[in-house]
């Protein structure tokens, strides 16, 4: 175990990348996540672990650099914020189609358009439902603390290589900008060339002694393309079986339930405590994986609940997945703020009181 240190969420992403043995980071600065590359440039991991850090000329370039690095079986990542993720969506679709593992961080800000630099969660649809064209999903992790930001880079690579898919870390401006204590982990060394050949036999590592590997998302023959799609869908079903993650906060005896992710789960927790002081039994379910979504856990909780409320920094996006899981059995409410505004715990509590009265 390493030290306990105080750092920003964005800095934690950078240290998480170095410490989990990432091979490459390619990025283009944008608030509120510019500290990721700033920290990497300051730490100069190319001098220690050999990790490459490169500022690309645009988000389009950085996601395609990730594609190139991922083709060779290396652990490559990029980070950006909402307008940048829109530019990356073409690349994400290609990465998903070519079945390439990588980690892509979206520290979400208020939108649409250039929007604001303040926190948002309006990219839920875009990231959880795909983002680019075609029938695909990615693993989507939702950090709610600076420790999560640090840990989820390593976890993201683990899942990305397990399922041969991009893994999205869907953060927000609050988690990116706030400072908290982080427990640093033992450093994982970067994979050697031999290890890469063993872990990723599909990778382009030089064809000497074997048949050549071809990595592409193009298959003009529809039957081949359908095979690819079936393979992808089978992986998504496996994710839903094996890697759904969530956290319960005071749900054991709850009559009412908040569903919230990222910074909203933190604000929601305080609202839960305030409600319980008034004698109202509220709990909170925090999806850690937004895809695969904790549908089964909501299903398990529904029989004990009077109603459920999704709280988000959006006009209501995750609430659709909550409604699908609830399937009409109890009322599902929603409260959200948009465009970079963040509600206080009091505001959340008031919204709940109005909903259940």
């Amino acid at each position, binding site marked *: 175990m390493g030290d306990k240190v105080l750092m920003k969420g964005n800095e934690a992403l950078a240290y998480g990348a170095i410490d989990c043995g990432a091979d490459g980071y390619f990025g283009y600065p944008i608030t509120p996540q510019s500290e990721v590359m700033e920290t990497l440039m300051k730490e100069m991991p190319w001098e220690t672990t050999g990790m490459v850090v490169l500022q690309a000329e645009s988000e389009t370039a950085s996601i395609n650099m990730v594609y190139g690095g991922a083709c060779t079986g290396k652990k490559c990542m990029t980070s950006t914020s909402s307008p940048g993720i829109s530019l990356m969506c073409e690349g994400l679709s290609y990465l998903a189609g070519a079945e390439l593992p990588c980690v892509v961080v979206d520290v979400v800000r208020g939108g649409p358009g250039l929007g604001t630099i303040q926190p948002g969660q309006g990219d839920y649809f875009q990231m959880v439902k795909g983002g680019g064209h075609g029938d695909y999903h990615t693993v989507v992790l939702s950090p709610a603390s600076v420790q999560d930001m640090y840990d989820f880079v390593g976890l993201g690579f683990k899942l990305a290589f397990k399922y041969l898919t991009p893994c999205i870390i869907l953060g927000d401006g609050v988690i990116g900008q706030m400072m908290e*204590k982080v427990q640093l982990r033992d450093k994982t060394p970067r994979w050697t060339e031999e290890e890469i050949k063993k872990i990723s036999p599909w990778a382009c590592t030089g064809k000497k002694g074997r048949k050549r590997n071809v990595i592409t998302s193009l298959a003009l023959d529809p039957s081949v393309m359908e095979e690819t799609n079936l393979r992808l869908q089978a992986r998504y079903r496996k994710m839903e079986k094996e890697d759904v993650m969530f956290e319960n906060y005071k749900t054991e005896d709850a009559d009412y339930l908040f569903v919230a992710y990222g910074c909203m789960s*933190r604000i929601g927790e305080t609202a839960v405590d305030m409600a319980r002081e008034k004698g109202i039994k509220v709990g909170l379910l925090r999806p850690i994986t937004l895809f695969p979504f904790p549908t089964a856990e909501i299903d398990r909780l529904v029989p004990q609940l009077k109603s459920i409320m999704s709280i988000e920094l959006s006009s209501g996006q995750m609430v659709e997945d909550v409604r699908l899981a609830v399937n009409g059995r109890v009322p599902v409410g929603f409260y959200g703020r948009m465009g970079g505004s963040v509600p*206080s715990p009091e505001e959340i509590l008031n919204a709940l009181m109005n909903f259940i009265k």
Partner: protein
Amino acid sequence: MKEEIIIAGFGGQGVLSMGKILAYSGMMQDKEISWMPSYGPEMRGGTCNVTVVISDTRISSPILNTYDTAIILNQQSMDKFEDKVRPGGLLIFDINGITRFPVRKDIKICKIDAVDVATKIGNNKAYNMVVLGAYLKEKPIVTLENVEKGLKKSLPQRHWDSIPQNQEAIRSGMESVVEL
């Protein structure tokens, strides 16, 4: 123990770094901490604030609407945050940025002339440490020993020679705070 603090003033007054040093000091005292800044154009001038939570237990929301303590360094922040101090809480302000004194009767109000104190000790740059001293006199939630450790953690090594001056500024702030 749980202390929720808002520090607010102009960008450049050392609002964020004061919060950072307080957070580091809390960490040295084995507390849970969160530090949530207003970020963006504020840091290039304009009003700026940071919410610091120091607690014995897990911290839920880093974003709050009411506070145990408000440390106020300009009038805009006074207008915004005077009403947000919880009854029985504490409001400390620097008289130099203020045109209207606070009027609340249900909270403890303290003032400090931090510009004057910093000038007297010949270290204008330690203005924010004077204010921090005033706060720590009223609420000694972290020991001065841990503040020293916190300074060491938050300052790059090339600035460690300024730690004694910062400590002097904190001590001077402690001596100069006046309860209204």
